């Protein structure tokens, strides 16, 4: 279980997170929606301290971490128990696909090279990238790179995987294959927090949807409730722009 309480964060004078609290149960898949600038990515990034929130409390497993003064070992603890999938993939450019997935297994989890390699190969096979194991990231399409990015996060068997708009940088025709891989990961029962704009993905996969706007959580609930019976006017406005209304289906 991961619980954030009263998280605040400002960039200069601009308040990006104004007292945000969320709770994610073990095994739950939570999708965070919201317009750009709503603070959803900042919230996600503050969980593993890629962004340093100004204040708030995070409860994770048996730890309680104060965002105001996180200890170095707490930051490392969070990073070693969470996986992160970047919008721009963030594969290590100088390492092959296999080396990318093995890096954390060998360097952080201190597994032997053989063991790390067999884990990496298994995970790469699951995302359909085993054939490309010896390619460098520059030789792969965006969708392929993102699948490796997902494999790298999954291979470390984190307690929770954080996805930061994993399909936003992809060509439209590559979005599908990447979402399929994320769905498959979700089916393994791992806890996931996903920031995305993919509505149908949210509807299919999410146990719960959180709608954020202007640095606060506006509304949360089951995808069906949020999408079809939103309680808040702001949610309705946002959705009406994203889900085509009265669309002709041919």
């Amino acid at each position, binding site marked *: 279980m991961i619980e954030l309480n009263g998280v605040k964060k400002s960039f200069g004078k601009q308040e990006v997170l104004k007292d945000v609290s969320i709770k994610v149960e073990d095994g739950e898949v939570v999708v965070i929606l919201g317009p750009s600038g709503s603070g959803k990515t900042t919230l996600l990034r503050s969980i593993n301290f890629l962004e340093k929130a100004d204040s708030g409390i995070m409860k994770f497993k048996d730890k309680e971490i104060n965002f105001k003064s996180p200890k170095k070992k707490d930051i490392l603890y969070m990073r070693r128990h969470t996986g992160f999938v*970047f919008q721009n993939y*963030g594969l290590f*450019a*100088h390492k*092959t696909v296999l080396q990318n997935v093995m*890096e954390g297994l060998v360097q952080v989890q201190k597994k032997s090279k053989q063991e790390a390699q067999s884990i990496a190969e298994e995970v790469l096979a699951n995302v359909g990238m085993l054939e490309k194991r*010896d390619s*460098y990231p520059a030789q792969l399409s965006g969708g392929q790179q993102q699948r490796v990015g997902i494999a790298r*996060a999954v291979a470390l068997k984190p307690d929770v995987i954080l996805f930061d708009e994993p399909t936003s940088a992809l060509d439209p025709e590559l979005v599908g294959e990447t979402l399929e891989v994320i769905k498959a990961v979700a089916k393994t029962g791992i806890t996931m927090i996903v920031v995305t704009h993919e509505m149908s993905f949210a509807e299919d996969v999410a146990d719960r949807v959180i709608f954020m706007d202007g640095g606060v959580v506006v509304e949360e609930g089951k995808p069906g409730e949020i999408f079809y019976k939103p309680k808040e006017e702001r949610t309705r406005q946002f959705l009406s722009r994203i889900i085509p209304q009265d669309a002709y289906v041919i």
Partner: protein
Amino acid sequence: MSFSISSFLESLQSAISYVPVTLKLTAITFVVSFFLGAVIATVRYYRIPVLSQFFAVFVTVYLGLPTMVALLLYNLLFMTFYGSFATFFHIPVPISEVNPIIIGYFTLIMGTTCSISESIRGAFRGIEKVQFEAGYSIGLSRFRTLTRIVFPQMVPILLPGMQNSLIGLLKASNLVSAISVIEVMAGALLPSLLYYSYLEGYVAAALVYWLIGIAIEIVAHYGEKYSGKYLKKTA
């Protein structure tokens, strides 16, 4: 002015016999400067308080100091103060026994460190922020993110500049002949002192520097090709 082949060969032979001095001076200076330059650039990149400001001012000021001026200045200071320094620390070595090459090392290391630190600072900017974040996200510490992810990716960015620094250093190393260290340049002129064959001496020295310089360029060329292979679109 006549050109004597035999004097030239004599100068060349003498110059070649001092190649190890020049190479050692260049190589040690380069390695030490690279290490120190990397430390300075890293400190400045992470804006470590006090130290980064200090280095910023120091590097800016020091880069304006010509190597020859620095060399003669340090040499003068050394000559003047070594006596009292040695007495204070009870160093039993008289000044005549101290190899002046240490002044050469000091001068070259100071200057090269400053210029290399600027190159490395530039290379930091060539690395995308997400590479750092990806390292952190899999649980690598800051130090290991640097050594395992960031520094290796700097190699292809740094190589052209480092080749430049190394050749510049090779050429600057002959300045130490001004404080009576004998290296390739001074070595080539040793026979000239006897026979007044200065033209032959200078040409011999030029030839030796030129050959070493070309060797460095060839090595750097292949290094660049190899280290940047992951950047290519096709395998």
